[in-house]
């Protein structure tokens, strides 16, 4: 046998015959579920631990006054207070509802706009670059128009959210459509897909990964626009995360500000998990899962 073995350790540790392997495959899966969960969780916990640790150390050094940079202790204490108060839950309920509705509207507008612009050369020439330009328009520039159009109503907030997120989503669609493999386009056309059917059977599914990426970016825009937009209308009996964030800053309440930032991060993590799951499902289907890591 050859003296120098390539990756032989990795290969020999699985010296089992084929059918054995088949049987073991099932068991391995059971065993590994817990360990996979652990593998996905410990780095997060470690990162969290390191971040909080550094924060605490910086606070201990007395670099800044506690009212300028409160330590983790007071912040988590305030977060606990906050979580026990109705303010967080009411605010979160309002904001989440607005975010979901606004994002849904933005998705509709963004997808339609993206598909329309991608589809027609004239629309693309006319509006294509306008999409990015609109995307760079800061939310506050839209406030006067929002008030003109919708007065002080929830719609004004939606308007700002949709204008913030829809261009981003449309850009995702455009990117996806632009990179549909030409061979698949030809295949689709030859199989009889034309016009809308070509979109339904070829372009949309082929562009799906890019569209999901665009939706993720769109969510970030929607959420940030919402945080700003929630100050537009402080509506009767309805508090919101965006308003609370600004109040915390207005009252120089560093602890509450950081507590709200933690809440925003947690919401972001949850949303990312949802997008991550969708993306993973697509990658599994397409057979491009878990190859980059190797």
């Amino acid at each position, binding site marked *: 046998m050859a003296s120098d073995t390539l990756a032989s350790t990795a290969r020999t540790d699985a010296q089992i015959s084929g059918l054995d392997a088949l049987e073991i495959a099932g068991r391995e899966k059971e065993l590994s579920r817990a360990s996979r969960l652990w593998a996905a969780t410990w780095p997060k916990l470690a990162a969290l631990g390191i971040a909080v640790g550094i924060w605490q150390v910086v606070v201990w050094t007395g670099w800044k006054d506690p*009212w300028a940079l409160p330590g983790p202790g007071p912040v988590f204490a305030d977060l606990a207070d906050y979580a026990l108060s109705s303010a967080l839950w009411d605010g979160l309920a309002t904001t989440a509802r607005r975010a979901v509705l606004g994002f849904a509207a933005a998705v509709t507008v963004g997808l339609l706009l993206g598909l329309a612009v991608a589809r027609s050369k004239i629309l693309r020439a006319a509006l294509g670059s306008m999409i990015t330009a609109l995307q760079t328009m800061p939310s506050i520039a839209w406030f006067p128009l929002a008030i*003109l159009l919708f007065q*002080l109503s929830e719609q004004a907030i939606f308007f700002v959210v949709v204008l913030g997120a829809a261009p981003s989503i449309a850009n995702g669609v455009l990117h996806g459509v632009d990179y549909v493999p030409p061979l698949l386009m030809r295949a689709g056309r030859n199989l009889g897909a034309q016009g809308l059917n070509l979109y339904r059977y070829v372009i949309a599914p082929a562009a799906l990964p890019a569209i999901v990426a665009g939706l993720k970016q769109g969510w970030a825009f929607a959420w940030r626009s919402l945080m700003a937009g929630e100050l*537009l209308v402080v509506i*009767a009996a309805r508090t919101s995360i965006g308003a609370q964030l600004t109040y915390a800053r207005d009252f*120089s309440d560093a602890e509450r500000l950081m507590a709200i930032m933690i809440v925003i991060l947690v919401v972001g993590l949850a949303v990312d998990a949802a997008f991550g799951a969708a993306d993973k499902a697509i990658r599994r289907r397409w057979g491009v899962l878990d190859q980059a890591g190797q």
Partner: protein
Amino acid sequence: ACGDDSEGAGGSSGPVTLRLGYFPNITHAPAVVGVEKGIFAEKLGANVKLDPKTFNAGPAAIEAVFSGALDATYIGPNPTVNAFSKSKGEAVRVVSGAASGGVALVVKPGINGPQDLRGKKIATPQLGNTQDVAVRYWLKQQGLTTTKEGGGDVKIVPQENAQTVETFTSGAIDGAWVPEPFVSRLVNSGGKVLVDERDLWPDRKFVITNLLVSTKFLKAHPDVVQKLVDGQVAANEFVNSKPDEAQQAISDAIGKISGKPLDLKLIKQAWTTLEFTNDPIATSLKAGLDHAVDVKLTDPVDLKGLYDLTYLNNALKAQGKPEVVQP
């Protein structure tokens, strides 16, 4: 030299940098004039370098003071109280007043008295700020209820001042309790003054801007603070004696940052509702807080130690002017 707080500690032997914050705004007229006309620079002398910073809103200025990026700033009563109470009375001291008045309730033409406000929407700059408290307290005295959430007889809608002009012109609100120059601007968009807040205060005086210094800087460089207060007194002198020049200076200063000089007419219009006084009118701040507690917008705050008016009184004494009462 915008470095550590420790820099130059131990007296004013070495050169010291004074980082001073203010808003390019009518209510900050003494600051604008003091910087633009070189009044501060003159009073501070060669040993102290003035590093002025302009802000658009209070929170950033307070953050800057807290983080040691500013040594002193002109600011309104609301952030003053917040900064004092959040730092448990440690971070800041008020060393002088700057301006009084300049706040009013502007309403749509059809509204002629408090009772006409029932069911109407009134804007304020921010939930729990001076004007928000003032309008709620005043309404309460008129027998009208309000709630923190915007319910009650009169609906209070806190929103940015810029937005207030937009919502007022588009008819979404019926009035607003705001400071200058927004009072004038609302009047110019067809509103009328229903209440001039000066009428609600003794001597028609209440604080709208005062001068805050960080306690650390005050401890390290009391002499510089003295010079700054001297400058403030001189600036007010200038503002009051040469209003035209002061108004022009404000218009120019705003123009430098915003790209468009502010309309002089508007400044003149707002000017009449303001009084530039060195007295921080501590009683009005205290009363305002009591009102806030009264309308259940805040818990009582102990303001003891907020004011350190020795420097101001030194300055006034030197000029032979009446001293103010240390609260």
